[in-house]
């Protein structure tokens, strides 16, 4: 257990730039862009005398607002709270993709694998520590950074509105920052399960390839996909190309991007259409996202991912090219 903790720590030391600084910098850029947008809006409205709400004073509007309108404002605050996750999630997906591809290849290339293998650490533990880094450590850091970024964003939103005489506390009672935090965190375990086939495939390529793991990782499923589509077009073997692309190619390459489960998985019993538009958090709430646990797509992916990771461990043991 102690060894495993230090293995995780080692991964963090090596990939501090990707795991920590990439989300932090992305969040920072996101906040700066928002500050710029708010300033632009303020400057333009001041210069042209434009008033929010078509000439009606914003305070007047707020005073007359009914509960529904307040809910919309609260929803906007909630969106502000979770919107940074979108951008940070994409960056994190890229980081995890390239982390997995390099995780069992880079140390073979620079021969430092000989140092790691000179320590009493089993290959299984080494590989599993890298899986855990990709599936749990990186997403947890990304979510925490998103939460901090979201809270700052919320403060920004509130400060901007307070200049227009809007009651900040009333606004905050209609937003749900705690629920937003809980929803974001609740998606980490689901992400780990969903991303497993991609993490497994990328690490298998990283562990097995003698050179150019990226090429192996991308070319193999894409070439297979093209073949399947080709047979499909000719009506041979009764294979459907689109099924293969959606359930194999995309799953082994793109599942590392958070949120892709919402896009790819058609088995999800809760569709996005029936969500309340005044409740943007519902999309991320466990009530909605954990419907994925009923999907065979998820579990077949988990099993495939475990098999691929077992293959990566085997390659880690036998690959001898140093």
């Amino acid at each position, binding site marked *: 257990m102690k060894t495993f903790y*230090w293995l995780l*720590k080692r991964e963090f030391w*090596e990939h501090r730039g990707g795991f920590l600084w990439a989300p932090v910098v992305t969040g920072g850029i996101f906040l700066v862009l928002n500050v710029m947008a708010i300033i632009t809006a303020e400057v333009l409205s001041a210069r042209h005398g434009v008033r929010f709400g078509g000439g009606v004073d914003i305070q007047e509007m707020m005073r007359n607002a009914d509960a529904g309108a307040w809910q919309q404002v609260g929803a906007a605050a909630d969106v502000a709270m979770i919107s940074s996750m979108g951008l940070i999630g994409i960056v994190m997906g890229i980081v995890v993709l390239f982390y997995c591809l390099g995780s069992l290849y880079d140390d073979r290339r620079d021969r*430092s*694998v000989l*140092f790691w*293998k000179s320590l*009493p650490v089993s290959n299984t533990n080494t590989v599993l520590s890298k899986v855990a880094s990709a599936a749990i450590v990186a997403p947890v850091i990304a979510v925490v950074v998103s939460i901090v970024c979201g809270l700052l964003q919320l403060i920004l939103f509130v400060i901007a509105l307070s200049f227009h005489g809007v009651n900040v506390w009333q606004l905050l009672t209609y937003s749900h920052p705690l629920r937003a935090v809980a929803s974001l965190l609740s998606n980490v375990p689901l992400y780990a399960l969903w991303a497993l086939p991609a993490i497994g495939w990328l690490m298998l390529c990283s562990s097995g390839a003698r050179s150019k793991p990226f090429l192996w990782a991308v070319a193999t499923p894409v070439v297979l996909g093209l073949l399947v589509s080709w047979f499909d077009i000719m009506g041979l073997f009764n294979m459907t190309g689109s099924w293969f692309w959606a359930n194999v190619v995309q799953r082994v390459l793109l599942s590392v991007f958070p949120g892709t489960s919402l896009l790819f998985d058609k088995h999800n019993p809760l569709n996005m259409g029936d969500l309340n538009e005044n409740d943007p958090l519902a999309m991320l709430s466990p009530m909605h996202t954990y419907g994925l646990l009923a999907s065979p797509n998820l579990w077949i992916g988990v099993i495939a991912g475990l098999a691929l990771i077992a293959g990566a461990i085997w390659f880690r043991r036998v690959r*001898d090219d140093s």
Partner: protein
Amino acid sequence: MNAVVTATGLSKTYKNSIALNDVSFRIESGRIVGLIGPNGAGKTTALKAILGLTDFKGELNVLGFDPRTQRDQLMEQVCFIADVAVLPRWIRVREAIDFVANVHPRFNRAKCEAFLARTKLTPNQRVKQMSKGMIVQLHLALVMAIDARLLVLDEPTLGLDILYRKQFYQSLLEDYFDENKTIIVTTHQVEEIENILTDLMFIRDGRIVLDTDMDTVGERFVEVMVSAEKAATARSMRPLDERQVFGKSIFLFDGADRATLESMGEVRRPTVSDLFVATMKGTYA
């Protein structure tokens, strides 16, 4: 004495070459064994087999473990320095010590820090900022702080200047080696280690061609400097090697009668390099 490594019928074939060809040997505890051979002779393959880094045919027992299946337990008792280039470039001195201290049960942190205090390394320094000599100092500090029974060194001083090379072997002898430890070392700089070795193994084309201890080397092999008129007699005694220096011939004999040789000229003990060159004649031809 108990054996640290016992190999029986060790064979390893790569795609188109034989790296080890039915090799058998035994290494006792408390020895410093030089495994010496030309490039591509199978030295590194033999070491990799001992360390469980490669698959092979035959029987191999290292400290009672089979390196193929019991690597994890074995590596608690075995340390190894491949060459100076294998420490990860991103790691800091402090991180390397922390990591090894926490994953290696036999690591003594105080010993490691005491050794590093004698160098110019600082805790926050990264490997990529170090010279080759400094990297090997760090690696040696890590390894010497581990109470292992077998230390394997594969070209540990490759590319280092003479100051670092001398310091490396001196530290090993003074601060590390004792009768409970065993060191296996391969190197091309034979002359630098020949006076620290207790045993000598020559390997050529995947076979052990000489496996002996250093005392026996002095008894078996004799070099004699013979003037031109006695050269023909010396040649008839089937020397291993002959070379010319200042108009005289130097012959190298294996197991010849010492008294006869002494009557022919000046007798001395051959250096390991001379013995090596004589044994490996024609390797690259």
